[in-house]
């Protein structure tokens, strides 16, 4: 395992356990855009604990997201349990408890060099992510930060993707008060309108999920070249359509490839909506 200095805990399990009480296990999972995540075990109960890097955050900033999270009951969106606040070093950090998805994330798979997927797996990943995005959009919330690290895989199965952390990017986007510098959203997976610093929209999420599927299926990012700036990335999305993934690998059937390519359109209105994406996947 390569040591990644950016993926080390900032608060750490000791401080968290001190604030929230002892755990049977508290395993650091990773550090993301908005905070750090742990696999927490108390007795027979295993769940994911996420501590947000926004000390003393006012409730109103995420009331809407919490309300939406608590209404979710969908196999492709992480289940929410509760939220609270932890007193750490004299500050109050908000935290969430969600279902723990045993199977790692798409990012874990990519980091491990797993790129050879079957067409069934790729289609399953796309279908699952579309279903998850449809669910949160129906709740009136945008994800805004879909990326491989935010797509868990139930039991490691590509056909059971589970969206994590939806809506939280907006909370942090509303304020520059994040304690630890973190870009809101992840440039490599942002839709071009987000890269232009315009508000995210539903089809921004569609673009991001298509990048994830393209990268997972082909092993290649559709646009990004190492060292590329956000502006260069934006220009490339605008001017150079991605290679057809069918020319890169055998993980895409025709419908999956065509839907993914449509979702990677520069203009949001040229991307498919969720209904149209499902329709095209079914080949109607």
């Amino acid at each position, binding site marked *: 395992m390569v040591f990644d200095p950016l993926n080390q805990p900032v608060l750490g399990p000791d401080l968290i356990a001190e604030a929230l009480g002892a755990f049977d296990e508290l395993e650091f999972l990773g550090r993301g855009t908005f905070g750090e995540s742990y696999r927490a075990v108390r007795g027979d109960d295993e769940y994911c604990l996420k501590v947000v890097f926004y000390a003393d955050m006012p409730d109103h900033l995420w009331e809407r997201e919490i309300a939406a999270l608590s209404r979710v009951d969908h196999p492709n969106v992480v289940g929410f349990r509760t939220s609270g606040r932890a007193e750490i070093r004299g500050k109050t950090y908000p935290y969430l408890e969600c279902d723990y998805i045993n199977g790692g994330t798409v990012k874990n798979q990519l980091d491990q060099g797993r790129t050879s997927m079957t067409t069934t797996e790729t289609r399953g990943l796309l279908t699952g992510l579309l279903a998850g995005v449809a669910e949160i959009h129906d709740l009136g919330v945008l994800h805004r930060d879909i990326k491989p690290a935010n797509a868990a895989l139930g039991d490691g199965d590509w056909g059971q993707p589970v969206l994590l952390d939806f809506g939280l990017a907006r909370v942090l986007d509303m304020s520059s008060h994040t304690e630890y510098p973190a870009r809101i959203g992840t440039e490599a997976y942002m839709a071009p*309108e987000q890269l232009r610093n*315009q508000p995210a*929209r539903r*089809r921004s999420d569609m673009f991001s999920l298509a990048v994830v599927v393209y990268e997972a299926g082909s092993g290649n990012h559709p646009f990004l070249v190492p060292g590329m700036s956000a502006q260069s990335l934006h220009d490339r999305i605008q001017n150079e359509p991605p290679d057809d993934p069918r020319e890169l690998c055998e993980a895409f059937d025709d419908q999956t490839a065509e839907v993914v390519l449509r979702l990677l359109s520069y*203009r*949001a*209105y*040229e991307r498919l*909506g969720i209904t149209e994406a499902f329709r095209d996947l079914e080949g109607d």
Partner: protein
Amino acid sequence: MPSRGPVFLAHQGAQAPILLENFLLATAAEHPDWPVAATVFLPRYTPATSAEIVSNFQSSARYVLADPETHRMLDPFAERGRGRHHLGYLQESDPRANRQRFVDAVLRAQIEAGADAVISPWLTHGTRRTSAHLRATFRFAELAAERAIIGDRELLFGVAVTEDVVADDNERGELIDDLVDLPEGNVYLRIQVTPPTSFGQYAVPSVLAGMREIARALEANGRRVIYPQMGLAGWLTVPDGAFGFGSGISASMQRFVAPASGFGRPLEWYFLPQVLGFVLRSEVPDISDVTGYDECECPYCEDLTFGIGAGWSRDVAGLHYLWWCSELADEVTNAPNRVAALRDRLEASREFWSAIQASRVLLDERSEPRHLAIWSAATAA
């Protein structure tokens, strides 16, 4: 209802409403299949008059809209039309701050006028550097979509932008992005244009291309757009998915020659269907000698006297124009291949213009159908 389109939307303008009412009656009687609807502009009348006009039009138009012209909210109160003393929404001091009340009042005004469908209000985007008007317009649209007051009526999302917005790739792209994110429904898109000089047809290539792209993109996303007050420039977009275009007997029919001193005399324009544009009525006799000229068979031309002298009725000439808008709408709408039908018509018009030139008939510079080449190029792609 509007979603059934496409239609030609005849606008009640400055002329007496009985003119348009009779036009609609005659058209419905003689050509019941023609897709003709009508619009009444609410601020121009008292509510009682609007309701009466709408009711009279409804007997023969496919449907009638009551356009609230909310772009007038950016004008001083005194310039908000005759209805400003009667219609609550025109008295609103700040539509954005009081948006719920404003939206309700706009919808209620249309419903009380008896409109068959209602249009959400708008503020014109593109007149200022910010997108505040556009954001407000979309907020109005969302609020309108939530209002139970509209009942079973179809809701059109009203949007107004300047022609610069339509012409600019980025601004247009962002506009379409926003339009496709609206709740389900069709779009009533006003484009604020710089009027063509004289009585020429609107022919700005970048705007025409933008209008076509908007129509295509919205159709691809399950929506349709109607272009009110765009005349035949809107007709060009019907094959791209627009579900209507609108025109009235324009006040420009009364335009005067720019005087060197004192007053000029009114120009007397005639819509020459074979060039899809306007010529001076004094030029028609010469044009009628050109090989290939077809005498107009509309019910109005028999009351028009061409050449010099005798009387001329702008109103009748205007009804002739509306008749042709209806005919052209029908021609394209009901063609098995709309694109081909439109291109054939444009091609025939260009051929006739070539014949006019070959016959050495000299037209006033303002009568030359320069729009034809631009329209053909704009619809070629």
